[in-house]
């Protein structure tokens, strides 16, 4: 995690807030994160900003049990490589989903969340995360509620 100053967050706001990537107009390839130079065409290429589709599928995932500094509050959390509808892949957390429910191929969509905060006085860092496209995340809350109701009856 980066305990870096405000400019380091500010200059990445397009990508992290709006999922902006790059497209090379010469070869048509789309990249995330943004690149100044297309690795296929290099100086012959012409790279422009492009907004990426907000939906995709889980390409691979893991559940982080031993978090890095700054993410203790969120553990265990799901980290996934998401393949977007145009084939571009991004790394992100999967939220609103139980760790045991995530699977390769799970349809997900992008959402805007807090990523971490630098203590009481530091910067709060925001960015994209992904959540399941179906309603399993709602059901998991409902089930939790049911358990607590039945416990109350006892």
């Amino acid at each position, binding site marked *: *995690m*980066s305990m870096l100053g405000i400019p380091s967050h500010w200059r*990445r706001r397009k990508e*992290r807030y709006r999922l902006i990537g790059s497209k090379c107009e010469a070869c048509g390839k789309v*990249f*995330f*994160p943004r690149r100044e130079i297309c690795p296929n065409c290099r100086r012959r290429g012409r790279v422009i900003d492009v907004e990426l589709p907000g939906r995709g599928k889980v*390409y*691979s*995932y*893991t*559940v*982080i*049990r*031993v*978090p*890095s*500094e700054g*993410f203790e509050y*969120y553990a265990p*959390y799901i*980290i*996934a*490589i998401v393949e977007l509808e145009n084939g571009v*892949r*991004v*790394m*992100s*957390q999967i939220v609103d989903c139980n*760790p045991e429910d995530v699977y*390769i191929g799970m349809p997900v969509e992008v959402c805007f969340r807090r*990523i*971490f905060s630098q203590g009481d006085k530091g910067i709060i*860092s925001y*960015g994209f*995360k992904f959540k399941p496209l179906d309603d399993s995340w709602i059901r998991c809350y409902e089930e939790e509620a049911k358990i607590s109701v039945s416990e109350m009856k006892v």
Partner: protein
Amino acid sequence: MEFPLYKKRDVAIVGVGTSKFGERWDKSLRELAWEAAVPAVEDAGIQGRDIQLVIFGNMSGGLFAGQEHVGALIADFLGLNPTPAIRVEAACASGGVALFQGYLAVASGLYDIVAVGGIEKMTDAPPDRATLALAGAMDSEWEAYFGATFPGLYALIAQRYMHEYKLSRETLAEVAVKNHYHGSMNPLAHFQFKTTVERVISSPLVADPLRRDDCCPISDGAACMILVPAEKARRYTDTPIYIKACTVASDKLALFEREDITTLRATIEASREAYRIAKLSPADIDVIEVHDCFTIAEIIALEDLGFVRKGDAGRLYEEGETYVGGRLPVNTDGGLKAGGHAVGATGVKQVIELVKQLRGEAEKGRQVSNAEYGLAQNVGGSGATVVVTIVGR
């Protein structure tokens, strides 16, 4: 990728030294350097003043031990001033890249006696600082920022690999069991005890599906070797080991940007070039050191290096072929898993193990009989730098 030198000298290793790897509370960075360099110099039968150039791999002296400027520090405390001394960095491949630089220095004809080493003092840092330092090897803006950890990146590889190639959890654990078995016979190894599949798969989860016992330890350690031109090697030793090839390849820093994460393209590229330069094929290699920072890394390394077809590496472990005495002995010193992973030192330590194997100097029980060629693969980060070195008698 074509090797650009038309006229190059062959390079020989004439002296080696490795410190004990482990939690070395008693030693600091400078003392670890001494522990590895003095045996290397004595092994080569030279004097410190004969050394013309010092190149050490070190990933993050600053974050791990509060010490940068490691090249000069080493030269100073080895008593070698004013010999030029340089520290090189390529994350966990820092040692391998140091060897590559030393190889270039001798092969090019610029230097005749070069000390190449690797060093890392990791346990002086609190664990979360060490994790932070290691996270510097991944893409800090697009991987670490979102909460990825190093075990997490390799867990993503493992999850996808197990999905595509149906590798079982038990077979993956066999990698750790084998490396602990070899490590139990290595007096310099970080862990010198055996383990079992049951123990590995019941250790705590770190990043699913990887558990604690799939991960290499955080170690202190150093390794050093003396390189000279091949034509002068016999002046120093009766058992010179020749560097047949030493190649480096790079790949995208971020794992998620790579087309296929069940393979390290840099391993494929570097090894292909190494085999071409050495005029050897995987079938010629008798002993192998690969970068098993996590169990899954050893599985995919054997496939990428061409020892087994894609998806078939698991079978080697089910059949026990990667033990000393098997068809394909891998990580005979315990690898990173049991031998220890002092990140900057690992790439050099691996090649030193090959030198010991080729000289026939490994401890009883882990000596590969009559080994002629050895190959080492040293990985930086999740595969953005890979160094492949082939050595022969």
